[in-house]
């Protein structure tokens, strides 16, 4: 392991836990202290819908195929961590994309990488981090926030169905299989506050905690 490298911090939790908010705050704070921070979001490393979704065992399939985390670590995160500077053009696909597009990451003399997203504490990746944060919240709160955010671009009924049949069951697989709360350096409770979104209408049901 090179000594002259960057610090790697991981910020993770279930969908809607508040990972992005915390990661942004960490990056802003470190930047305020004059450190050179690379804030990297895993969302660009989604697989295309045809790969990440399946009608057969949808939760297990999503857990295994939602993200291209191996590619992300190999092409971006580990080279950047170990050399502190990195210029690379990669294929990215955001939530609603149906095709990859090229994106160039250019970082120089980075002190701290703040990596944010779901599944960062799968067992295969736990050893990569110098420090890691699990942002903890209930599935019900997460669903409220997801509905308020609406980033999947789905009608509310479809979003609830997607969360209850795919995203949350996939996160339960993650919790059982990888025990990310225990693997994290710090667990941050984030189940309250004004960012929770409005209550879920009874007609939409609610996710069990």
């Amino acid at each position: 392991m090179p000594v002259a490298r960057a610090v790697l911090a991981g910020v993770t939790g279930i969908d809607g836990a508040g990972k992005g908010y915390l990661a942004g705050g960490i990056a802003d704070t470190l930047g305020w202290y004059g450190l050179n921070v690379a804030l990297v979001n895993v969302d660009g490393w989604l697989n295309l819908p045809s790969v990440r979704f399946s009608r057969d065992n949808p939760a297990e399939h999503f857990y295994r195929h939602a993200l291209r985390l191996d590619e992300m670590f190999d092409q971006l995160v580990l080279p950047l961590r170990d050399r502190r500077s990195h210029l690379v053009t990669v294929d990215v696909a955001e939530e609603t994309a149906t095709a990859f597009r090229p994106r160039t990451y250019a970082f120089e003399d980075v002190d701290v990488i703040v990596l944010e997203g779901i599944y960062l504490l799968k067992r295969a990746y736990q050893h990569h981090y110098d420090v890691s944060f699990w942002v903890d919240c209930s599935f019900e709160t997460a669903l409220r926030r997801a509905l308020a955010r609406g980033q999947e671009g789905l009608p509310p009924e479809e979003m609830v169905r997607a969360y209850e049949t795919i995203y949350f069951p996939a996160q339960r697989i993650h919790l059982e299989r990888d025990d990310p709360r225990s693997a994290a350096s710090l667990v941050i409770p984030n189940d309250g506050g004004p960012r929770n979104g409005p209550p879920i209408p009874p007609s939409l049901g609610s996710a069990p905690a």
Partner: protein
Amino acid sequence: MSEVRALAARMAQLLRERPRTFYELLRALPDAEYRVVLQAWGSLREARRLGRDDHGLYLLKPSS
């Protein structure tokens, strides 16, 4: 504050020895809490003592 000042002095000594990355500084200060590390780092920065060499490593500039 004395804890911050003491840690800032240790950081300054480490950077006086040779230029280092922030990661190296953390490794050299395993007993320090991150919050105090940032406060000490901030005090060096406010005093304009931090510079970077050609490789991007932090070094200690002479006090003005």
